[in-house]
């Protein structure tokens, strides 16, 4: 059996090329997850194996349908069930690990990561299906081209929006005025002990996030999104705290009057530029994005139209 054998068996060529592109798609998308998820080899193996299954399922569906074997489509339903379990698996693992984090990810961030893992498997299926379809209809060369287009599209869109898209991030001085700690003009908390005030004055780093529009205000106010920012920045810069020190917790507080978000960190590494880059590149959680402005405008327009 060699490459020439594949060319005279178009079904097999479709399945092989489709599967290959399905797996490659999964591989490309797995790489960007390292920041969000520990890159241990066994987790990687699990996801590559599932990517292979996803690719194979997508690729096999095409010849099955072309041979009028419509029951084969039920296989895809089984696949969907399988990948929903992937989401459960990721959620359970991350939830279990979250108790051991000094600064938690929070359930919204975990849910976001789990959804991404499930969604990316479907993208693999889709890429494999499309490639296999084009191979079956127009030959292997066109199929490879279609696969490459899929890969390029996935590569281009694998990164979602970040905080930089919804807010202007600025440094703000951390002020300790008696027991009150403020970042810029946002009140953060009351700290009783002198030693904790000294630590905050020395190690504290403050940012103020100004929402770019009214939709962004809602997103920044979301508790899950705030926790995600705190977790990501604490992961990248280290955190100056230990278990059993609730007074030294990184905090995010809303300036109620302005809708600005004040952030107080206690990083190990006091590098303002790195911290700024970390805040700006925190992913925007799907569950935190709302579009109230558009909905309100539409409701208003309807009200005007209906008199």
């Amino acid at each position: 059996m060699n490459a020439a054998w594949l060319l005279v068996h178009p079904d097999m060529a479709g399945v092989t090329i489709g599967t290959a592109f399905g797996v490659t798609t999964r591989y490309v998308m797995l790489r960007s997850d390292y920041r969000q998820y520990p890159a241990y080899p066994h987790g990687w193996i699990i996801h590559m194996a599932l990517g292979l299954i996803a690719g194979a399922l997508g690729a096999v569906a095409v010849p099955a349908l072309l041979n009028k074997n419509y029951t084969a489509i039920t296989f895809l339903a089984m696949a969907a069930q399988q990948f929903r379990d992937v989401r459960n698996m990721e959620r359970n693992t991350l939830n279990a690990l979250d108790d051991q984090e000094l600064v938690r990810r929070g359930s919204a961030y975990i849910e976001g990561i789990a959804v991404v893992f499930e969604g990316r498997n479907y993208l693999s299926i889709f890429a494999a299906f499309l490639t296999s379809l084009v191979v079956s209809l127009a030959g292997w060369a066109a199929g490879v081209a279609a696969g490459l287009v899929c890969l390029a599209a996935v590569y281009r869109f694998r990164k979602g929006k970040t905080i930089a898209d919804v807010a202007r991030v600025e440094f703000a001085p951390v002020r300790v005025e008696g027991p009150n700690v403020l970042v810029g003009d946002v009140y953060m908390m009351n700290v009783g002990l002198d030693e904790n005030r000294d630590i905050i004055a020395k190690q504290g780093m403050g940012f103020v996030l100004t929402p770019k529009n009214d939709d962004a205000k809602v997103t920044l106010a979301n508790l899950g999104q705030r926790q995600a920012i705190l977790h990501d920045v604490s992961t990248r810069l280290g955190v100056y705290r230990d278990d059993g020190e609730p007074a030294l917790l990184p905090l995010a507080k809303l300036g109620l009057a302005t809708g600005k978000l004040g952030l107080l960190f206690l990083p190990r590494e006091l590098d303002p530029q790195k911290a700024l880059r970390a805040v700006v590149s925190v992913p925007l959680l799907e569950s935190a994005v709302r579009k109230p402005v558009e909905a309100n405008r539409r409701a208003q327009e309807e009200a005007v139209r209906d008199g």
Partner: protein
Amino acid sequence: MVKIMAVVTTEKESVGGGAPLFYARDKEEMQELAHLLEKLLNAAAHQLNEHSFLIVYRG
């Protein structure tokens, strides 16, 4: 759930009620007591006014 675990004060007459009360002779002792209670109770010390600290647990 926020729970007041203890109150540390230098002014006996300004506090009372259900939480355990700790009296300190001066501000220094108040800081020291609040520090110990913070570590022991896994809670945060907040300053209520010049004379009193609340030890608060957020579970």
